[in-house]
């Protein structure tokens, strides 16, 4: 009789995939909390976390480097999930915010000799403020027009980088001799191992924070903002303020991914943050499943590993262009056949297969 609030008969696979999704449920007469051992989703995430901690000691540094890139991008995609999947806004310009984070961190480390953790925090703040500003037009413009507007931002960003070449290094960008993110000598880790472990921790914190944001009173407000802004207003949601807050947080998160990505790579060039990168992030968000947090990881893995896969199949030089095509095709196919994304689809399958016996 007592079914969980977070698993309504397959209607919202999204919430099921959230890390440790809402744990309250009702039994006849009252609201109770589900004990931790009865939350399969929490278990799955814990297992994944443990695998993440072990992985650096199982695979090569080269493979780790790739995997770290997946995680930095997953952070940005998770930010996009909050904005698109939860709040129902759209940003086709998150690549620019990722780039803004990367450039801010690189400039602070390279030119001002900041310690990398401080540079990362500053990059988060800068991207957050930029996102808040991008949110301003979103108060008036919605849907497709907002998409176009944010695409324009994505398109202008590399041009701005070239324009202010004194600060950004122009077309050649900024390079460091090596990544500043290195382990203390005594730890006995390679930089790649350390960076990956760091990213595992950061991704975990980001996903937990975003999950917290998208549940409870604020989560309901965000949901109402997406489903019916007029209803949200009359329920007491300050829709304008919430929209800006969500844009700010989503962008700050994208900037965090960018800052760590840039510093791990020890290099930023304008070409990395072209409009295509923004659209690639968008396709990662949709293909993975914009309403699931696991989707951020799947989507990021998809866009990082796909070009490699294609290059292996058809030779290296044209691989990049083919990937763009495949991203676009994957985006369309997902929209048609798996509207809740790959993670959402898997979540629904699992829910279907695990719930049957429980129901009796």
């Amino acid at each position, binding site marked *: 009789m007592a079914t969980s*609030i977070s698993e309504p*008969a397959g209607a919202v696979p999204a919430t099921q995939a959230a890390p440790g999704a809402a744990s309250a*449920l009702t039994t006849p007469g009252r*609201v109770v909390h589900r004990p931790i051992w009865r939350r399969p989703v929490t278990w799955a995430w814990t297992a994944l976390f443990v695998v993440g901690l072990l992985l650096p000691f199982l695979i090569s540094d080269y493979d780790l480097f790739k995997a770290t890139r997946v995680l930095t991008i997953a952070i940005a995609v998770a930010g996009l999930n909050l904005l698109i999947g939860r709040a129902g806004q759209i940003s086709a310009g998150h690549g620019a915010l990722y780039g803004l984070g990367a450039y801010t961190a690189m400039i602070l480390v390279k030119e001002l000799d900041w310690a990398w953790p401080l540079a990362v925090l500053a990059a988060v703040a800068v991207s957050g403020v930029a996102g808040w500003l991008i949110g301003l037009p979103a108060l008036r413009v919605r849907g497709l027009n907002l998409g176009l507007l944010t695409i324009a931002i994505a398109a202008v960003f590399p041009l701005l980088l070239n324009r202010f070449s004194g600060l950004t290094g122009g077309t050649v960008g900024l390079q460091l001799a090596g990544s500043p993110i290195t382990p203390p000598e005594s730890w006995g880790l390679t930089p790649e191992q350390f960076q990956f472990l760091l990213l595992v921790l950061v991704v975990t914190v980001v996903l937990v924070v975003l999950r*917290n944001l998208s549940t409870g*009173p604020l989560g309901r407000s965000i949901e109402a903002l997406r489903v*019916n802004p007029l209803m949200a*207003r009359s329920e*007491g949601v300050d829709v304008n303020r919430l929209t800006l807050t969500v844009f700010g947080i989503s962008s700050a998160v994208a900037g965090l991914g960018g800052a760590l990505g840039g510093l791990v790579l020890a290099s930023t060039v304008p070409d990395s943050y072209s409009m295509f990168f923004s659209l690639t992030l968008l396709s990662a968000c949709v293909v993975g499943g914009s309403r699931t947090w696991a989707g951020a990881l799947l989507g990021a893995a998809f866009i990082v590993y796909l070009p490699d896969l294609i290059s292996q199949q058809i030779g290296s030089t044209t691989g990049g262009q083919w990937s763009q095509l495949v991203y676009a095709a994957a985006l369309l196919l997902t929209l048609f056949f798996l509207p809740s994304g790959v993670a959402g689809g898997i979540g629904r399958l699992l829910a279907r297969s695990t719930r049957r016996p429980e129901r009796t």
Partner: protein
Amino acid sequence: MPAAAAPPASSAESPPALGARGVGLSFAGLRALDGLQFEVPAGGTSAVIGPNGAGKTTLFNCISGLYRHEGELLLHGRPLGRLRPHQRARLGVARTFQTPALLDGESALQNVALGAVAHSRVGVLDSMLMTPRRRREEQATLEQAFELLRRAGIDQLADRPVAGLPHGDRRRVEVSRALMSAPTLLMLDEPAAGLGAEEARDLLREVEEVAGPGTTVLLVEHDVALVMSVARRVVVLDSGRLLAVGTPDEVRADPRVVEAYLGAEDVDEPAPERLHAVSEEAS
């Protein structure tokens, strides 16, 4: 509160729950509301009636703050001015929609809990960091939401997604959500549509009981017999204009109401237009 804003009529008692002074609104040339002047006494249930397109929902939207309008609206004697919808909600204005507006992907319990956001003290940081304050408030909210569902007789649906619920249950979820914010003015836009006469009466009695004496219920309703039996004051609109306002007996006796709205029929008989909403919503 400026002295000039105090309602002239009732000086001794508490100010009216709602006052309208010259409220008007045009949609691209269509005069949807025109110079509305009336008061709704504090406490109990009052009603707004009128034929389709009379401007009842538009009036609710003005009170919610969703539409800008001419003239002045007063909530318990306080001018609402340009206050935005969420600010009005925090002052105690709550409503339901003519077609229930719910979070379709969420459970009934979550939908009712949404009603608590108007008075939530949980900030963005509290939410992100899952502070004890947030945990405490959330637990209290869910328990209160569950209690409201129980009093509405649908607690067994608490965990069910509202998307699949029958119309009457969706309606109850929405009304419970509105009650969740402990409103001082509760506007119900055709809450009885799609319900049987018996069910409708029960719903209204329940709402009054749960809301308590501090809440004024303002009802839009097509079933005139129902309105006449529950309302303290009836506001009659026709094509955006105030046709009559008064007690059910006064309104019933008003020749303009009888002529323009109720027609030649006895008001206790259901007129075809009153059935409109019922047939439209029936599933």
